[in-house]
């Protein structure tokens, strides 16, 4: 009769989505309390502590000995160790000191607090917008006005702000506690979307009033998974979407406002760092265009008993292909994985070529400076460094390795390669500059590059997967 009970349970479950055990209000920041009403969502939410790797994503649990300064006993792998070229890329910026593969939401507060980047630069309170349950903090600081609270938080030193934060992103950051509807609680995203829509000719866009439910299933993620900068002395968190969401459109904006995030240690170019533009790249892809939301893949419906709930274990969809992809794509799991990885392999291939080009340019500018070149003589090369850097970093920092918009990612990398190599060419005009022989491709090397190409190996005409470019000692493994 075990079977019978089972079936009985199933039938009744379907009609009882939840018991309202506790009352939730706009001050309830503790997810454990929400979890009393929604135990299944809460259980899954807690599982964002899990760590496992995919070819390019997920994360790996690396043990470490906790110290007083950094009490974490587990971190994720260092991307700087994976690919030392990144240190050259970011020389002079905090990222060159510590940059790790990102992992589940459960870690966001700790990972921000204890990253060594905190020791290099004095970070502002702004950081907390995306690494903590910030909604109640805004409300408290702003006395009910989240925009006021936002401004206050931005201006605080990180250490002070940090004391106000209790949880990583929590239920209240995405949900209205009364209705459980999705809502946007982040002023920076509200402003960003307003600016972006204005560039499209739409005035006074209000994301919380005008977005559809399906849009909200991406917008709640877009609150944090975007490119940003800290504007002005008030360190206002700002999304650079005033000209559009494409990387090259952001570049136009950054040039127009004269933003620079740091000055490169070797070349002195005024540079821009791109960060996790998942929302923006996704926007350029066919999935977005077909109305497929972040939550469709990263929080797919999953059956718990007779209920279908949104899987609050937010993670790489490649760890959960059946639920994340097969609802829409009726093909075997292995094939879906191969499709995603083929896209990622191509992105990674071009990304590596662009990375080499960047390193060559940096070395060349160094040599030119040694030869006595001044900033004016280097202008063209430095601008090429700036522009290429942002475009390459945009794809590098974007965490899907091109999956969210495969052709667009490749377009940006192609453009970046052009900037870097043009930047090298621009040095010709510099008196005394001869360039390094090492960066000159010999016929052999050229052929070598070709010979190192991914080779297909499997048998079916239509089923080949591009292998990761062969990695000699000097090449990094995929992150």
């Amino acid at each position, binding site marked *: 009769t075990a*079977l*019978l009970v089972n079936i009985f349970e199933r039938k009744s479950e379907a009609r009882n989505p939840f018991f309202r055990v506790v009352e939730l209000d706009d001050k309830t920041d503790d997810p454990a309390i929400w979890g009393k009403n929604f135990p299944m969502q809460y259980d899954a939410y807690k599982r964002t502590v899990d760590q496992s790797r995919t070819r390019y994503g997920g994360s790996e649990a690396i043990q470490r000995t906790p110290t007083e300064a950094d009490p974490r006993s587990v971190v994720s792998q260092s991307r700087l160790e994976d690919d030392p070229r990144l240190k050259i890329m970011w020389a002079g910026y905090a990222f060159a000191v510590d940059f790790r593969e990102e992992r589940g939401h459960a870690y966001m507060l700790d990972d921000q607090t204890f990253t060594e980047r905190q020791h290099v630069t004095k970070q502002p309170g702004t950081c907390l917008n995306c690494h903590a349950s910030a909604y109640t903090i805004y409300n408290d600081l702003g006395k009910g006005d989240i925009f006021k609270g936002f401004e206050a938080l931005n201006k605080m030193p990180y250490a002070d702000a940090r004391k106000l934060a209790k949880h990583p992103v929590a239920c209240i950051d995405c949900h209205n506690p009364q209705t459980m509807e999705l809502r946007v609680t982040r002023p920076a995203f509200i402003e960003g979307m307003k600016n972006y829509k204005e560039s499209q000719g739409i005035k006074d866009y209000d994301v919380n009033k005008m977005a559809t439910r399906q849009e909200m299933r991406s917008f709640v993620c877009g609150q944090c998974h975007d490119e940003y900068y800290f504007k002005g002395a008030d360190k206002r968190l700002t999304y650079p979407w005033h000209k559009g969401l494409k990387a090259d459109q952001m570049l136009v904006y950054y040039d127009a406002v004269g933003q620079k995030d740091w000055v490169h240690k070797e070349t002195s170019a005024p540079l821009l760092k791109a960060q996790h533009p998942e929302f923006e790249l996704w926007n350029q892809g066919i999935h977005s265009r077909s109305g497929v939301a972040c939550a469709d893949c990263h929080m797919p419906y999953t059956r718990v008993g007779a209920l279908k709930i949104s899987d609050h274990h937010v993670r790489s969809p490649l760890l959960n292909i*059946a*639920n994340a992809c*097969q609802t829409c794509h009726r093909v075997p799991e292995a094939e879906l994985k191969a499709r995603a990885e083929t896209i990622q392999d191509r992105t990674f291939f071009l990304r590596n070529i662009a990375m080499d080009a960047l390193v060559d340019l940096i070395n060349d500018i160094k040599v030119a400076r040694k030869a006595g070149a001044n900033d004016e003589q280097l202008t063209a090369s430095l601008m090429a460094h700036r522009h290429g850097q942002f475009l390459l970093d945009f794809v590098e920092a974007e965490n899907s390795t091109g999956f969210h918009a495969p052709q667009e990612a490749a377009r940006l990398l192609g453009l970046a390669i052009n900037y870097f190599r043009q930047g090298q060419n621009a040095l010709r005009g510099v008196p005394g500059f001869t360039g390094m022989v090492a960066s000159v491709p010999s016929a052999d090397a050229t052929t070598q590059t070709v010979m190192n190409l991914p080779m297909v190996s499997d048998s079916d005409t239509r089923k080949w997967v591009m292998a990761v470019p062969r990695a000699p000692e000097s090449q990094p493994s995929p992150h």
Partner: protein
Amino acid sequence: MVEGKPSKFGRKLIWVGLALSSLVIGVGAGVGGFTFVYAKGGSYMTNDPKACANCHVMTAQYDGWQKSSHHAVAVCNDCHTPHNFIGKWTTKALNGYHHSLAFTTQNFHEPIQIGPRNLEITENACRNCHADITQQIDHMAFAITAQSSPISCIHCHKNVGHME
């Protein structure tokens, strides 16, 4: 498989099916039988699409069917059971037994995906209703050889039964 000509595999299945159906329909007591009845395994015996949707796991397909181009012209069984008496009831029994068991033990791949046997049945259902219009593309002229085997209707018309 060409219409009206059950493959070797198909013929074997008919026998297995007959055996199973007697097992399922014939059993009056025991958990297996009770489960089948309680879970409305009997749904399989009617032509009413609502009956299929008795199992909540069929809801998505039911909803999809309601939005589909065939909503007015074909019910579940028109596409998911063979268009001949024996085949139809064998399939019902096989699927009925299999689905009841799967549902009760909750042991099945999600999302539910049509298997090769049921796919072939569905393909043949298309051909059965649409023989008139599809004969040019289905049977290339004189000979029926390996290469002139039909190409899958569902390759192009995936959405006709269940709008996505």
